[in-house]
């Protein structure tokens, strides 16, 4: 019997509805879990995504793409298959996609996290038979604290740097983490918050959806230096670029789940690493399996072979690897 969802050379495919979820090759009709570039690629005939994802797709892929916008929980019928989007807690607008046909339910998590970051629509478990889950941090060495505890660490560090008379540069993914951090800095009005163009562009696009964030774009012309004590948000790719010369005397930190490992932090030569991730850690991945009650687990990008074996041998559930082309984007750029 053919499965309702399977992977082919273009993406996760639902043959019955003839649609793809997060395809990596151009297709007619694509359902998009979220706007990160490895999940939302160019060249598709039509994009189906959450309202908050749409402005980012337009920003990145151009205004001429065809987008159908949906709300969370809104059922969409395609060739008798019911699709619906449910909050994934990863970034604003990120969704798990539920696929139901004749009583059989599949869920594609996309990227997700169970911890509330204060901005993204919080994760909601979706009961299903078949769960296709990511596994970016699918090893028990990854155990993340609440984002709110990390926000406090970030603010404390910023204050410490201000007292030392140096600027604070935070490197984080321009879509997602940048906004959830800025969202916590609304009270900090006395000191300037400056944004790299990549972050400012995303903020600008989200304004159309009524989301507003503190921070000024550090324009490239005229070339100005950051004032003392400022906090600057930039994507990881800014590290070591000439753009950083404008930061004056600064300390720099990376915000990423990878910062859990000392080697990853030292390799990048940053002063500090904040363990802040928009993905599930090992415990959350296990909890998600419990919450969905899924009987079959398919593991995609990350530590897929290890997490599959764990689910199969230690949790006694049928599990298999699903080979996709999604990448870990935590340290990549938009």
């Amino acid at each position, binding site marked *: 019997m053919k499965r309702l969802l399977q992977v082919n050379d273009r993406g996760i495919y639902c043959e019955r509805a003839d649609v793809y979820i997060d395809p990596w090759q151009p297709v007619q009709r694509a359902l998009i879990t979220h706007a990160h570039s490895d999940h939302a690629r160019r060249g598709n005939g039509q994009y189906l995504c959450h309202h908050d994802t749409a402005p980012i797709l337009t920003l990145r892929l151009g205004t001429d793409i065809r987008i159908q916008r949906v709300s969370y929980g809104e059922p969409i019928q395609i060739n008798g298959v019911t699709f619906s989007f449910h909050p994934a807690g990863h970034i604003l607008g990120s969704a798990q996609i539920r696929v139901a046909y004749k009583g059989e339910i599949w869920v594609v998590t996309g990227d997700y996290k169970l911890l509330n970051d204060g901005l993204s629509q919080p994760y909601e478990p979706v009961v299903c038979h078949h769960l296709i889950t990511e596994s970016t941090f699918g*090893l*028990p*060495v*990854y*155990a993340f604290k609440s984002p709110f505890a990390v926000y406090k660490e970030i603010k404390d560090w910023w204050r410490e740097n201000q007292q030392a008379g140096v600027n604070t540069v935070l490197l984080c993914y321009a879509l997602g983490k940048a906004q959830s951090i800025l969202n916590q800095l609304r009270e900090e009005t006395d000191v300037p918050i400056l944004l790299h163009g990549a972050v400012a562009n995303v903020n600008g696009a989200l304004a159309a959806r009524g989301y507003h964030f503190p921070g000024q774009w550090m324009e490239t012309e005229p070339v100005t230096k950051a004032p003392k004590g400022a906090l600057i948000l930039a994507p990881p790719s800014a590290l070591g670029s000439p753009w950083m010369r404008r930061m004056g005397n600064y300390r720099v930190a990376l915000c990423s789940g*990878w910062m*859990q*490992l*000392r*080697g*990853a932090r*030292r*390799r990048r*030569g940053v*002063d*500090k690493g904040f363990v802040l991730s928009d993905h599930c850690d090992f415990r959350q991945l296990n909890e998600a399996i419990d919450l969905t009650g899924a009987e079959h687990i398919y593991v995609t990008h990350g*530590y897929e*072979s*290890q997490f599959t*074996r*764990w689910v199969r*041998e*230690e949790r006694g559930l049928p599990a298999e690897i699903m080979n996709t082309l999604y990448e870990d984007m935590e340290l990549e750029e938009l």
Partner: protein
Amino acid sequence: MRVFAQLFEAIDSSTKTSRKVAAMVDYFDRVSDEEKLFAVALLIGNKPKRPVATTSLREWASALAGIPSWLFEESYYAVGDLGETLTLLMPQQSRPEETPTLKAVFATMTALRKYSPMEQRETLYTFWTTLRGTALFLFNKMLTGSLRVGVSRKLVINALARHLDRDEATVAHQLMGKWDPLTTRFTDLFPQQGTALPHHIPYPFYLAYALDREPADLGDINNWLLEKKLDGIRGQLIRRNGELFIWSRGEDLLTDKFPEFGPLTTLLPDGTVIDGEIIPWKDGHPLPFARMQTRIGRKNLSAKMLQEVPLVMVCFDLLEYEGRDIRHEPLLIRRAQLAALIDNPALQRILLRSEEMAFPDWQAAADFRERARQFHCEGLMLKQWQSAYGVGRRKGDWWKWKADPFSIDAVMIYAQSGHGRRANLYTDYTFAVWDGDTLVPFAKAYSGLTDTEIKSLDRWIKQNTVEKFGPVRRVKPVHVFEIGFEGVQASNRHKSGVALRFPRMLRWRLDKTAAEANTKDDLLDLLRLYGQ
């Protein structure tokens, strides 16, 4: 341990040496002499030996974390450091936090060795469940015998000198030798100014940098002493108070390993310290270093071995003469005194004076360097005749000028992720040469590429993996690298039949295809010509 953990964090989170030194000075000013002593031991790498087998550590930690052992191993591959893996896998405990003193931790490390496995496990569970954060990490790093703090010995000396208000050379000297913080006091190590040091303590070694300029820029060749750079063990020979001590540069006391030197106790006058290279020597020239390695590891030296691999010290400097520290004298004077001291027929079977190589000009010296291997050496040492004997590695008066390495173009066939700051990144590669139409692995290397090259190669490896076994990936045989190495010898433990000394990547040959790599015969030719 709490304050030391803060110091570790301060050092670990900075790349600036000035900040690291300031953090150490601040720490030394704040803590007790006792804590300082243990901290200095850790900072300079004088750490306790690994007290428990790592297999036991893995087993007990997996049990405590509630994971199967295969998942522990997978986690270890990802983290790339056992101490850190143990730390990350410890469950968040409800037991109250404790912060033992550094001394207590050191004492535990020593005591653990004598415990039964049951007692070891109980002790570890106690520490694992009551330590937190950096303190837990430091404990586990000591437990795995791999604690390194990101400061050089030079920086520690610098900070101690500032804390004690003494000059760096004095502090460097006082820190020499093996000392056990559990049986030493801080005031023993750093006695009041003017107090004589214990007679077994060696002087800090003077070390050379690789020559970083044209030799002609060094001026008149006649101002320089040129010696063959020999491949042995750098050692300091001390004859004081009727006793003989031989120290290696790694500050191991090796006196018992070299019974040949025993007669020097009576043959050398009291108050003599000589710097030189200890090297196997027979029939007027050095034997390969590999021969020395076969004897250095042994507890008991057979008469046969002593006869087959006799050692000498090729002496190149005199640091103490008639009980006087003469390191400040010019090399010219020290060499003259060295000659007077050891040009003595009774000594000539064990102490040789390093040959003073005479070249009319730098070009002649360069020609010799190129063919250095034919003369049983690795290149030349250049030392200014007017120079004093310095402390540590300095630029200017001493240079090493090594011959270019051998090189072979090879194909990368396996990749493995690295350790420490290279964790989770494919940085350790296995290389192969052609034997007919099959690729035979012959060397592993992990150094020589830039961070940018490593990053792009890492990406390529992840996308071009043919097969995975544990942490190792077999990749498509596409990329060619020029592999450099210092020596080659026959080996029946390696598939290729050869073992290389210090292989590393010299260049990523993007201009070559796999088919253009060298062959096993090319390697065997090198073995025939230069094999040891």
